[in-house]
Each structure stands twice: as C-alpha cells, then as structure tokens.
C-alpha cells in the first residue's frame, strides 16, 4: 500500500543530495500516479460506472471499501493518541503528533473515496441543499466534516509552538513565552476530550451506514459499531506503529524501543478484542441454524472460506501470536511485521463485509436480479463475484498517492517530535 510506504524517502531529504534526489523522484512518482488517477476518474465520469466491476447485484465496491478502511485508520490513530493524553499515559507522547497527522490525512482520503463512488459527482452540492436527516449517510458526512476540521486543528495545535519558535507564519501569531506554552498544554488536553469521542463517533456512525440496514443480513447487527471500533484500533494503531518505525529509521522521530514494545502489547490486546467480537458475532449467527445465519455460514465454505481464513488466522491469530511473545515484542522488526499483517487482515475483514454482505439478494429465487447492463445470455444474476476493474484500481491508487503526497509534505514541514515529557 503506497500510503504506508509514503514517508519512506522524503524525510531523509534534508540529509544529503542523494536524499533530495530520492525525494524528487518520490514526489514525481506520486504526481504521475495521481495524474493517472484523475484521468481514470474523468474516463469514468464520461462513461458512467459501467467501467467498474459493480452492477445492480453488487452495487458498492472498492471505493466504499477504501472509504471505510480509511475512516478506520483515521479513527484508530486518534483514539490511541487522545486516550493516551486523557489518561495521562506520558509514554505515548513521542508518537502523538504522528498519530494526529496520520488521522488527518486518513480522514481526508476517506472523504475523497466517496466522490468516485457517486453516479453524479457533479451533484455533490445536493447533499447540503436537500440533506435528509434520517439518512445515516448524512450523519456520517457530518461527522467526517467535523472530524476533519477538528483533526486539522489538532495537527496545528501540536505544531504551532514549534512553528512560532521557527518564526513561521504558520504559527498565526502564537507566542513562545513560558505562559503561552503552559496554555498550549491545557488546550491540547482539552482538545483530547473532544477528539476521543469524535473519533469513536466517526467510526460508529460509519458502521451504522451498514449495520442499520435490515435488508442486509450480514450487516444488520448491533455488534457492527463495536466491531468497527476494534478494527479501527487494530488498523489505526498498526499504521501509527509502521509510520513511527519508518520515521524513526529516517531520523525524523526519536523514541525508545520500550515504546515499540508497549504499543505492540496494546496492538495484541486490540487484536484479541477484535477476535472476541468476531467470535461472538459468528456464534450468535450460526448457533440456531436458522436462515438468518446463512450469510455467516457462507463465509465458512466455498470461495469465501480462504478470505475468512486470511481474516481470522492470517490477520488476527498470527500477529497476536507474534505480539504475545515478550521477546518478539522487543524487536521493532517483529512488531512492525505484526502491525502490517494486522492492517492487511482488517482490510480483508472489510472486504468480506462488503462482498458477502452484498453478493446475495434477499429473495434468492431464480432468475435473480437484473444486472443493469445488457450482457451475453441472461440479463439476470442470482449472485455475483465482484472484481474491481483497472479503472477502479487506477482511481484508488491515485487517491492513495494523493494521501502519500499530503503526508510527505506535512511530515517535511511540520515538526514531528513532541518535546519530551517533563
């Protein structure tokens, strides 16, 4: 995933001429990928969503999948950072700025992923003009906007004292006196009180877009919001660990291995929590052997079984086993690997939610649903195996590159190191 690899080269830039060349090449690559993404989007805009793998039978796909994945990455990072602040966990301090920046970039990406999913993106202003208060999508757009503004403000709050010291205009008149600094700390703590509930609401409401729909048996469950929170914690913390390790290697951020071990332990606990909720969900769905459990049963057989195994064995059990070893927790390499596997596992978890949640109609009688476009043979399908097209990939990679560029630039210009706890 390019967003993960994003900060690799740029931070080394100030060091040497070679670093500068690498930075230029990296930004050039991102701009090219973004260009391809924009071209793909224009092509899709001109030809309609028929250029995607979506049809009436699976009407949401890759764009929505990445939307919810990035909402999770965003919420998870900020929950850890602001909870650390609220509960006075000083050890988290070195990664706070990183977590806040990661949360901001991720939520911007999440919002961007909605655009290519719309059949009529040029009518986007209909959302504020004719908003329907009973639509979970409206609740979500509202919280995404609030959260985006809040996390951007948060990034600035953390950076402004340093910016003022450097004499940057970005400080917007913030002073550097002792009294100002003391006030800064109070403002940051107060902000954590807003950020934590906002991050939790962000992901709960995103879960409710899916979980409130009685039409989708695989989604219609009160466990959706809690499960979205735990999967956000796993993937968000995982990404913060990965980015932190990369920035540390590049010399942009300093923290001790103790913190890596601590975050690794926390990630292990989050993995266990996610596994617990999945167990509770599947047991409840499968135990009665009733039709309501069909969707869950489908995950355990046929084409879906490998995906399910990747989700729970590969994505949860393996990283949990790694992180449960005290010796391995002390190794940044192992913790980084566990974090990366955990992120992939959460991605597959969400893929399973979308695929299995949508691929089968409620009324499973032949000939099924009209797919929406003329095709060879019958225009109906009873189930559908969604595969994204090259256009969808080009748009997704373009948006990911945009995020990588945002993060690269922000990590170059914003001080990442939070002064040590006194």
């Amino acid at each position, binding site marked *: 995933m390019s967003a993960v690899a994003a900060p690799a080269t740029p931070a080394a830039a100030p060091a040497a001429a070679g670093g500068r060349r690498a930075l230029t090449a990296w930004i050039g690559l991102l701009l090219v990928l973004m260009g391809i993404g924009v071209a793909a989007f224009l092509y899709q805009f001109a*030809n*309609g*969503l*028929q250029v995607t793998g*979506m*049809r*009436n039978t699976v*009407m*949401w796909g890759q764009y929505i999948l990445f939307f919810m994945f990035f909402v999770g990455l965003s919420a998870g990072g900020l929950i850890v950072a602001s909870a650390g602040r609220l509960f006075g966990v000083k050890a988290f301090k070195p990664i706070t700025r990183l977590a806040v920046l990661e949360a901001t970039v991720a939520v911007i990406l999440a919002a961007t992923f909605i655009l290519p*999913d*719309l*059949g*009529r*993106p040029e*009518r*986007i202003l*209909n*959302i504020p*003009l*004719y*908003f*329907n208060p*009973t*639509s*979970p*999508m*409206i609740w979500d*757009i509202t919280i995404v906007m609030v959260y985006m503004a809040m996390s951007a403000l948060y990034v600035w709050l953390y950076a402004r004292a340093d910016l003022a010291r450097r004499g940057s205009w970005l400080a917007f008149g913030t002073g550097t006196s002792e009294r100002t600094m003391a006030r800064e700390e109070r403002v940051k703590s107060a902000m954590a009180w807003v950020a934590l509930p906002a991050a939790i609401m962000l992901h709960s409401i995103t879960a409710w*877009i899916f979980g409130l*729909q*009685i*039409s*989708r048996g695989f989604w219609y469950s009160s466990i959706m919001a809690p499960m979205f929170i735990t999967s956000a914690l796993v993937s968000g913390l995982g990404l913060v660990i990965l980015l932190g390790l990369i920035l540390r290697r590049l010399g942009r951020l300093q923290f001790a291995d103790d913190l890596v071990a601590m975050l690794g332990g926390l990630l292990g606990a989050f993995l266990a929590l996610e596994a617990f909720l999945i167990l509770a969900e599947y047991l409840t769905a499968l135990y009665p052997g009733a039709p309501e459990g069909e969707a869950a049963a489908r995950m355990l057989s046929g084409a879906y079984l490998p995906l399910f195994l990747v989700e729970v064995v590969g994505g949860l059990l393996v990283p949990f086993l790694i992180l449960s070893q005290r010796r391995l927790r002390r190794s940044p390499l192992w913790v980084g690997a566990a974090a990366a596997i955990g992120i992939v596992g959460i991605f597959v978890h969400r893929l399973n939610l979308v695929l299995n949640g*949508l691929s089968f*109609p*409620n*009324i499973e*009688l*032949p*000939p099924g*649903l*009209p*797919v*929406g*476009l*003329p*095709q060879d043979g019958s*225009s*109906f399908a009873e189930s559908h195996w969604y595969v994204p097209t090259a256009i969808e990939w080009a748009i997704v990679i373009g948006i990911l590159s945009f995020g990588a560029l945002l993060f690269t630039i922000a990590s170059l210009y914003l001080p990442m190191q939070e002064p040590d706890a006194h």
Partner: protein
Amino acid sequence: MADDKVSPVEALSPASRAWGEIGERSGQPHWGMVVDQERCIGCWSCAVICKSENDVPLGMWWNRILTEGTALDQPEEVRGGALEMHWLPLACQHCENAPCVKVCPVQATYHRGDGLVMQDYDRCIGCRYCMIACPYGVRNFNWGEPVRPTPHETGMVGARPLGTVEKCTMCVQRLAEDQVPSCVWSCPTGARVFGDLNDPHGRLVTLIREREGYDLLEEAGTKPSVKYLPPRRRSPL
C-alpha cells in the same frame, strides 16, 4: 421528448379505455396493488409491457417474475414428491415504511402522499444507498447510457439520466389519466388488481381480507402497498 408524444390513452377506443379505468376510490386514496399468485401463470407479459411502457433499457427490469423454487420455470418438489409451480411477480413494493426513503441522503426518493414512492432523477446523486437498503432488490442503476433494442425511445416517459437510480413508478403517467398501471390491464389472467387501500369496501381490501393477502418479507417491517394473495390450489402437477 416524452412531452410531444400523443397520449396512448387518448388514442384508445372507449371500450379499451373503460377496461383500464381505475374505478372506485375513497376521498384520500392510498394506491396499492394485489398480486394473485394463484392466477399468475409466469408468462412475463407484465414484465415486458413494463419495459415498453417505461422505456426500461436492456439489462434492466422494473418488474420481473421470479419462480418459487430453485430454477427458472421449473416445478418445485414439495412434500411427498409432488410437483408444484408458483411465481412471484416482483416490482417496487411502494412501502409505507420505505427503507429507501429513509436512507436517501438528498431526499431524491420520497413519498408522494398517495401511497407511491417516487424517484427524482434530477436530484439523485447516484450513491446507490437506496439499493443497499431495499430488501426486495427492485431498484436499477444507470451504469451506462441506456441501450435499447431499437434506435428509438420506446416508452411513454422520458429516458433517465446516466448515473441515477430508477424503479417502478406504478405508471404515474397513466394514473394521471385515471388508468391502471400497464402491468395490470395487460395481465392475461387478471392476476393483478390495482386500487385504493384506503377504501374499506374496495376490491383490494376485500380481496386481501378474504384471501389472506400477505406482505412480502413481512419481517422487514416495510409495510408494502403491494400485497400478495397466496395460491390456494394444492393440486400436484
């Protein structure tokens, strides 16, 4: 385009016109439909006339005929090895508690106040949340420009724009001329009845009461305006 078409209803003979008239109603009609599964012979006439009436492009169906069983138009084996065959004609249920209306972010799908759930093609942003929410799978998205078997627009209503959602409208264009939807008058076995659910002595309410009409996916609580009459005949094929 649709505006300069001659109304097909005006061109009808008085007898044909009378055949399609909606008839009695209460002061405050709640339009609805009854589908009699005992009469339905699975001929797809209603599905085909719907396509031509509403200019539904290739690949889309506002109205389709499901076979109750495991294969299209194949009898289903019931208890004791006997064979039975029934169909489930399926189109928008025009729900009173419509999940699509609840979730549409821009109120592009809405209650018209007479029982019908309508779609505003000029407002729809194409997010397809309504298709997610609909338990019946009766909504179609315009994935591309409409493709027709002929180069002409075929319907009595205008074509829908790219990137928007469409579905059965109960032939609003015909209701305006006091005519029943096309699927109703065209049914060769009279399996569909259109009328006013608010009329306590009307044909619809009487049929639903006498034949124990049911809601499709009643457990979803959508309160459809389309009711189904279960087949009574139990004669094996």
